[in-house]
């Protein structure tokens, strides 16, 4: 299993450069916590890593087919049951052998027939994580995963991430909350794109008269 390597990455949102010169490496079994104030570009960075938007510059390895993306909205359908939701994603990712293992692993087995809309916030988060587990992809990207969770739920969540790491997985988390994970932090504000914003924008520099 290869490490997550990011080299000289530049990230933009809506044509506005946010981050540049970003390089880091996450080895198998490790996690990385991204910090920085709101709007610095944490979500845009994660979306770029996931392959949803093209990087302005730089490289990300491995490719998006090894990366599982977990946004704050988890894509679970409210009217489908826990098992139905998970079976859908398991099938889509070509997972053989059913969802039983994942249900056990994330303490979701008793909830399997409950509609996703009737889950608590903590249960819902675990469901989101279970989906990421189903993808069989080693790199997890987690965007503000513990918002609206109480302390006990945060603990269970952190243990689930630790189990993934212990199995040789990797995780990149954008969060303000201390999860109690032993992981290095990366402050994104040092990689903020220089104030000549919109440098990539042909209209910014002397385009007119």
């Amino acid at each position, binding site marked *: 299993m290869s490490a997550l390597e990011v080299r000289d990455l530049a990230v933009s949102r*809506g*044509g*506005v450069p946010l981050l540049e010169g970003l390089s880091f490496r996450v080895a198998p079994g490790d996690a990385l916590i991204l910090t920085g104030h709101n709007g610095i570009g944490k979500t845009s960075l994660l979306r770029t890593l996931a392959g949803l938007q093209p990087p302005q510059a730089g490289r990300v390895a491995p490719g998006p087919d090894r990366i599982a993306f977990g946004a704050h909205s988890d894509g679970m359908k409210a009217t489908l049951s826990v098992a139905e939701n998970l079976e859908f994603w398991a099938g889509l990712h070509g997972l053989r052998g059913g969802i039983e293992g994942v249900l056990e692993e994330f303490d979701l087995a008793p909830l399997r027939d409950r509609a996703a809309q009737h889950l608590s916030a903590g249960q819902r988060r675990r469901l989101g994580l279970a989906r990421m587990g189903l993808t069989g992809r080693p790199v997890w990207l987690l965007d503000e995963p513990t918002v609206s969770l109480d302390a006990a739920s945060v603990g269970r969540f952190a243990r689930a991430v630790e189990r993934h790491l212990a199995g040789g997985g990797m995780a990149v988390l954008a969060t303000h909350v201390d999860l109690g994970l032993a992981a290095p932090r990366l402050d994104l504000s040092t990689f903020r794109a220089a*104030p*000549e*914003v*919109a440098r990539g*924008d*042909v*209209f*910014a520099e*002397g*385009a*007119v*008269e």
Partner: protein
Amino acid sequence: MSFSTSFWSLANPARFMSLTARAVPILSVLAGVCLVGGLVWGFFFTPDDYRQGSTVKIIYLHVPAALMAINGWLMMLVASLIWLVRRHHVSALAARAAAPVGVTMTLIALITGAVWGQPMWGTFWAWDPRLTSFLILFLFYLGYMALWAAIDDPDTAADLTSVLCLVGSVFAILSRYAVNFWNQGLHQGASLSLDREKNVADVFYHPLLLSMAGFILLFLALVLAGTRTEIRARRLHALRLRERMA
């Protein structure tokens, strides 16, 4: 400098602005001369048609406007393709600037057609295949402009409107044939047709050519001026972003 290099150098906004700063006034004057010349010649110095009387003279507005209504869409299609393939921002903005001009030309063609139709056919509107096609073209223009207006991010808007323009072009051609089919189905053979310019006599033809040239020049001048405005708006957008980030 060969034509192809000079054409692609327009993709640089600064080059585009400096070249068009001189071109727009020249084109505007030429357009004015051709239009005034063609229309005055056509309106006052040609004989009345023996069947249609003086109403035929609206042809000097109607036919050139219809011509530019279609060519406006064609220009948008080409500019959209250039944007999708070569990512030249000026091209996307030129497509955006062509739409309001094109829709105005379509409207002029429709209104003059109605004004002409009243004395000729006794009705302002008939569901003739050509008229109907122009009405549909008008709707296509409206949708295209509405999509531009609805999206904040300029590059996203350029991408989506370009895709719409490509798909819309296919459906516009399809609609043209469908409408022909439909009207035959109703009327058993064309009864009303605007296919009259084929047998226009020379005495009408020359002023018509002149006013067509005038409309083409006017179209170019308006589109270039519109593109200049769009480029300035984009620069304003970029400067605002910079201010917000600094």
